[in-house]
C-alpha cells in the first residue's frame, strides 16, 4: 500500500468576512496518513479546532471526486496544489513531505471576493454564462438527435472544452486574474458544434463584455491557467475565442 504518516504544518488564511482583515494562522498536524486527501487534512484540523471550541476553517467543497468544481485554494502558491490536472479534493497528502509547512490561501481576484477564510464568491462565472453561454432552445419541439450530424472530431473538440468545471483556478493562477480560459472554454465548446452557430457572434460579444464588466484582468499569455487547470482545458480555446471576437466585429 505504501501508506505512511507524516507531520506537517498548515499555514492557513483566516478571515472572518469580506469586511475584516485576515491573517495567517498556523496549525501543526501530526500523524497524517499519506492516503488522506488534502481536504481530509483540513477536516482533521477542523475537528481539532472544534474540540477546542474554536471556529473551524471555512472552505468550499462538495463532490470530493474532482468534478463539481466547488473546492479550490492556493497551496504553496499553486492553484489546487502541486499535482497536475487534479482538483484540491483529489490532491493527496502523499504529495507532501514530513516536516513541510504548507501555505493555504483563498483564490484572490477582485471578481472573486472573499466570503470567509478560503471561501470566495465565484458567482461572476454564473453571470458570464447567463449572458450568453447557452444555445437558445426551449424545451420541446427540437429535431431528432441524429438529425444533426456532427463530425467526431468536432464533437471531441467540443467535449474537450466543455469539460471545464468552473472552479476558478484559471483566474486564481493568472498573474492578471483573467477569466479568459473559462470564458473561452464555453465559447469554444459551442462554436465547435452546429447547434452553436446561429448565435456565435452575439455570444462571443456578450460573454466577453460581461467578463470585462465584472472586473477580471486581461490575458497576457502567461499560460499559468492552462498549467493548473484540473481538466486540462487548452490555451487554444482562448485563441478560438479571440477569433470569434474578431468575426463578431464585422
Amino acid at each position, binding site marked *: *500500500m505504501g501508506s505512511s504518516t507524516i507531520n506537517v504544518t498548515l499555514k492557513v488564511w483566516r478571515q472572518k468576512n469580506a469586511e475584516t482583515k485576515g491573517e495567517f494562522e498556523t496549525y501543526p498536524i501530526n500523524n497524517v496518513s499519506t492516503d488522506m486527501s488534502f481536504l481530509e487534512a483540513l477536516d482533521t484540523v477542523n475537528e481539532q479546532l472544534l474540540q477546542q471550541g474554536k471556529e473551524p476553517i*471555512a472552505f468550499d467543497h462538495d463532490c470530493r471526486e474532482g468534478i463539481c468544481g466547488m473546492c479550490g485554494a492556493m497551496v504553496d502558491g499553486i492553484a489546487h496544489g502541486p499535482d497536475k490536472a487534479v482538483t484540491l479534493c483529489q490532491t493527496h497528502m502523499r504529495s507532501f513531505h514530513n516536516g513541510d509547512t504548507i501555505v493555504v490561501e483563498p483564490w484572490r481576484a477582485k471578481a472573486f471576493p472573499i466570503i470567509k477564510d478560503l471561501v470566495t464568491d465565484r458567482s461572476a462565472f454564473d453571470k458570464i454564462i*447567463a449572458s450568453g453561454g447557452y444555445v437558445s432552445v426551449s424545451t420541446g419541439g427540437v429535431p431528432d438527435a441524429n438529425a444533426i450530424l456532427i463530425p467526431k472530431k468536432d464533437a471531441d473538440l467540443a467535449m474537450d472544452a466543455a469539460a471545464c468545471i468552473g472552479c476558478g483556478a484559471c483566474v486564481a493562477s493568472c498573474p492578471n486574474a483573467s477569466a479568459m480560459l473559462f470564458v473561452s472554454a464555453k465559447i469554444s465548446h459551442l462554436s465547435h458544434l452546429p447547434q452553436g452557430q446561429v448565435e456565435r457572434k452575439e455570444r462571443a460579444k456578450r460573454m466577453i463584455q460581461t467578463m470585462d464588466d465584472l472586473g477580471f484582468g486581461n490575458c497576457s499569455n502567461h499560460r499559468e491557467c492552462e498549467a493548473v487547470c484540473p481538466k486540462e482545458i487548452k490555451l487554444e480555446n482562448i485563441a478560438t475565442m479571440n477569433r470569434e471576437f474578431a468575426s463578431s466585429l464585422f
Partner: protein
Amino acid sequence: MIDAKIPSGPIAEKWSTHKFESKLVNPANRRKFTVIVVGTGLAGSSASATLAEMGYKVKTFCFQDSPRRAHSIAAQGGINAAKNYRNDGDSVYRLFYDTIKGGDYRAREANVHRLAEVSVNIIDQCVAQGVPFAREYGGMLDNRSFGGAQVSRTFYARGQTGQQLLLGAYSALERQIGAGTIEMHPRTEMLDLVVVNGKARGIITRNLVTGKIERHVADAVLLATGGYGNAFFLSTNAKGCNVTASWRAHKKGAWMANPCFTQIHPTCIPVHGDIQSKLTLMSEGLRNDGRVWVPKAIGDKRKPNDIPESERDYYLERRYPSFGNLVPRDVASRAAKAVCDEGRGVGESGLAVYLDFADAIKRLGKEKIAEKYGNLFDMYRQIAGENPYEVPMRIFPAVHYTMGGLWVDYNLMSTVPGLFVLGEANFSDHGANRLGASALMQGLADGYFVIPYTLGGYIGGTVFDAVTTDHPAFAEAEANVRSMTDKLLSIKGKRTVDSFHKELGKILWNNCGMARNKQGLTESLQRIPELRAEFWENVIVTGSGDELNQTLEKAGRVADFLEFAEVMVNDALTREESCGGHFREEHQTEENEAKRDDENFSHVAMWEYNGPDKKETLHKEQLVFENVKLTQRSYK
C-alpha cells in the same frame, strides 16, 4: 386509501391521455403564478428552465455556490434512452420492462412506462442544447451497453455524462436567469415548508452567507433535492447532499416512501482510515474486463501478485457461472460483503476485494486497456496511490443512490397538495434497485417533460387563496427554524457533528446496509434515538447564526439524518422480504439470493409523521402489475 392518480387505459396510452385531460394554464396567465424550485441538479435545473420558458415566475434555490455544482454532475456512465438507434431490438416497452424487472417489481408500472416514453425526447433536447455526446465517425450518436443490459441504449459524453447533461440544463437555467424569468438564490438552504390551508405555499430559507432567515411565498413548491445516501456518512454522494428539505417537508405532511431502498454500488475505492470523508465510485464498466477475487485462505496477508492462481477464489465466476463478474449491482455487492465477513477481505482493513486486470492486459494489451479505462485507472492511482496496471485494484461496495424518497402520485405530487417532488428525491421509478444510467434519465424526464404538464394540471385546476409572507403559517415556520438554529448554537457540547454523523453511519451501514436482519434493525431502533438524544445535549456548534457557518449547516442536516434514520430502519424491519437492494437475511433462497414475498409486500410502504419522537404510521399503496409478470431474478 391513497390515490396515486394513475390514469386508466392501456399502459402505452396512459400518459398521452393524461396530458390531454390535464387542465392547462393560459400562457398569459402563467406569469401570475410563482413556482419555487429547490435544488438545481438535473431535475431542478431542467424544471426551473422549462417552467420559466413557459412563462411561470420561478424562484430557484440551491445550497451550493452555483447551480452547476449539484451532484448530478458526478454521474459517469451515461443516460439510457429507448431510441433503438442500434437496431438491436430496443423499444419503449423493453426499457419499461427492464426497469420494472431491474427494480425487482417494486415500482409503479405507469410511472416507469412514462419514463421510458419520454426518454427519447431527452436525448433530442440535450443535443439541441449542445451537449457533446460521443459521436461515431459518420457523425451519428454513439451508444454503449451498460450495467448488463442486453441492448446498447446508453448515450454518453466520455466519462462525464452527468456533468455534460447538468451543464446543458444549467445553461438553460442561466439563460432564463439572464432573461429575468428566474430569480436564483445560490448558497441558500431550504429549512422548512410552509403549508397554508392544506396546500404548500412557500418555504423558509437561510441565506448561508449572511445567515438571514427568509420567507418565500409561491403557488407551488418543487423539491428536487436528491437522495439521502449521506445518512450513512460514507457514500459516493457529495458532502453536501442531505435529507433536510425532504425531511422537513415530511414533517409538514409529505409521506416518505420505501426509505429502506438504498443502492449499494459494488465498485468503489475502499475506505482507508477513520478520517475518510467520502467514497469514490469507479464506473461499473470496469467489471466488463476486470476479474473479482479474494484469497481462498482466511487472513492471507500476502501481496496479491504473490498469491498463486490456485489459491485465489474468483467467487463471482464460481457462484454465478453464466453472468460471472457482470451480475447486477446488488448481487455483486452482497457477494463482496460475504467474502469479507468470512475474513477473506484484502487490504489493511480487510474490507476490500481485488478487481484484477492482469488477464485483460495479457489478452488485449496494456494500450487497449488504457484506451478503455485510462481515466478511471488514473483516478484510482491518484486516490489509492497504487498502479492498477501492475497490482489489482482494491474495491468495496459503497452507498450510492436511494430509490426511496418522498411519496408522489402519477403527477409527481406528494401527499401535500402543491408540493411536487422530482428526481432522486421522490421514490417513484426505480423500485427496489436502480439500473445503471437510469438516474440521469429520470431526473431530466421529471424536469423537462413531466412536471410542465402535471404542474399545469394542478395550477389550472386549483383555486388559490391570496397568501403573502405575512400569513401566520410563515411566521410559525420561521419561528421553528429560528428556534432550531438557536438551540443548536446554545448546546456548546463536547462532541463534533461529524463524530455523531460517523456513528450514525456505522449503525446504518452495519445494520441497514447490504444485509439486514431483525436483530440488527431492532438494536438500531434503540440505538438511534439514544444517539439523537446525545446529539441534542452534547454537540459542538461554534460561531453564530449570522454568518457563513458550515458547522451549523452540517449540524442541522445531521439532526435530520438522526430522525430520518429511524424511519429508514423501521421500514427495513417492517418489510419482511428481500427485494433488490433490500436484503433481509431471514428471507433468502437456499442459494443465498434475495427472496421476494409478492403476496404480502407488493406495495409501496409510506410513512406518515406524527410528531417528535412518535412512531410513524405506515400506509400502503398496492402495486398493480397489469403488464409485467413477476418472476424470480436468477443470474446463475
